[in-house]
């Protein structure tokens, strides 16, 4: 169902806050500028946290978010791009 292209995947399933953002922040910095990290999380709070983080971190852009299944989500996916 994903239409957002990505270059690397970080599976943060089962990890509690703050680890999904902490790991994503480290991982995305290892990419080339413009590349996208797909982060899989099971933490509902990660949706707002990734939005907030991308707003304050000048090195990253949040280029997409998805919840699966849409009606009663258990997985939250974030696409984070290292700024060009």
């Amino acid at each position, binding site marked *: 169902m994903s239409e957002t292209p990505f270059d690397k995947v970080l599976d943060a399933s089962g990890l*509690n*806050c*703050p*680890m999904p*953002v*902490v790991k994503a*922040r*480290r991982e995305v910095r290892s990419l080339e500028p413009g590349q996208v990290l797909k982060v899989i999380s099971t933490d*509902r*709070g990660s949706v*707002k*946290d990734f*939005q*907030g*983080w991308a707003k*304050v*971190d000048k090195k990253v852009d949040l280029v997409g978010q998805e919840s699966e299944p849409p009606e*009663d989500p258990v997985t939250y996916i974030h696409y984070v791009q290292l700024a060009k």
Partner: protein
Amino acid sequence: MSTKTAAGTEWSVEDLHAKLTGAKDFFVFDVRAEDEFEAWKIEGKKVLPTVNVPYYEMLEFDEFDDVADSFKAFLEAGTAHKLPRDVPILAVCAKGDTSEFVAEALRRLDFDAFNLTGGTAAWGDFYDVKSVDVAESTICQISRPARGCLSYVVVSEGKAVVIDALRHVEQYVSLAKDKGFEIELVLDTHGHADHISGGPELAARLGVPYHLHPYDGIHPIDVLPATIGYSYLRDGQAFTVGGKTLETLHIPGHTLGNAAFLWDGKVLFTGDSIFIESIARPDLGGHGETWAPLHYASLRRLLELPAATMVLPAHFSGLGEAGNGGLFVATLGELTRDNEGLRMAQKSEEEFVAYILASLPKFPDEYVEIKRVNAGLLEVGESKASELELGKNICALAQAYEDEAGS
């Protein structure tokens, strides 16, 4: 709801409640996202010194294996100078995981810091019970302090009625078991907009009747009938509980089916009509202008009751409204004098309606959905229910929330 308390470095939600209602000062360091913090924060009897720094802003110097060291590096770079050293600091986040690292980082900088176990989620679901013996019966006021919601169990001769049961129905079941009384009736004063009622579920679990006024069995905005099972409540209807009588007063205004209950002619459960410091708003059904005059007539009717009548409302807007013993209660006479909304209700209908329509706080979007859930028109799981109920009720007029808005 009880939560684990780790020795020394954690505050349970019970600890937090005791501190909020106690005399000693403390400081809150809230690391949730800015909009979550703005929407709802921990509040005390007086303004609670609080700072909000979203945790993801504190990762700027993240180069350590231990996240607490990354937070420590951030704090040392500036924020630490703004934090007090003379009072305890409570680190707070949504679930209590991130704030544990923050509290640890603060301790490494020699602050007297603690973590709120379970975070704001646990605080939102915390219940407190206060009891008072009056009119040869026992009245238990069961509250969710974080949300400003009040419910009641009224006991006479071992039999009890539950009024405005909140969502976590095991609270009432276990209270009945602990105190050895039998719940034989469940009532809602109205179809609630700010929280999910525990009434239908509690009644079904116990196999006892659940009553709601039929006007509130229709969703006011969808104009669809409720699918929950309920018995009709009507004006003047009297219920016998133990040795006492509970009388129904239909007082439309906040909702069309709004009701109050008078216990033994002495204690008035006002639901969402008269609160301690304010009165209920008439617009949560989407018809504020047409319902405000009904509200006026209903309040005038309640004002005819004796001044000594004890008023027990369904909401409060601040912990400071509690009186001796922590109970949210006042006499009708006191409220007639001190409650601004009730003072306005003693003026002309025109003046009252103009006042109330100029005093409406924001109408939270989720209130329409919560009414759907309460009518059985929408089913939600635990996490969605918890999300819908997040934050403090906004069922009173705007003046009730002004202290917080200015802080």
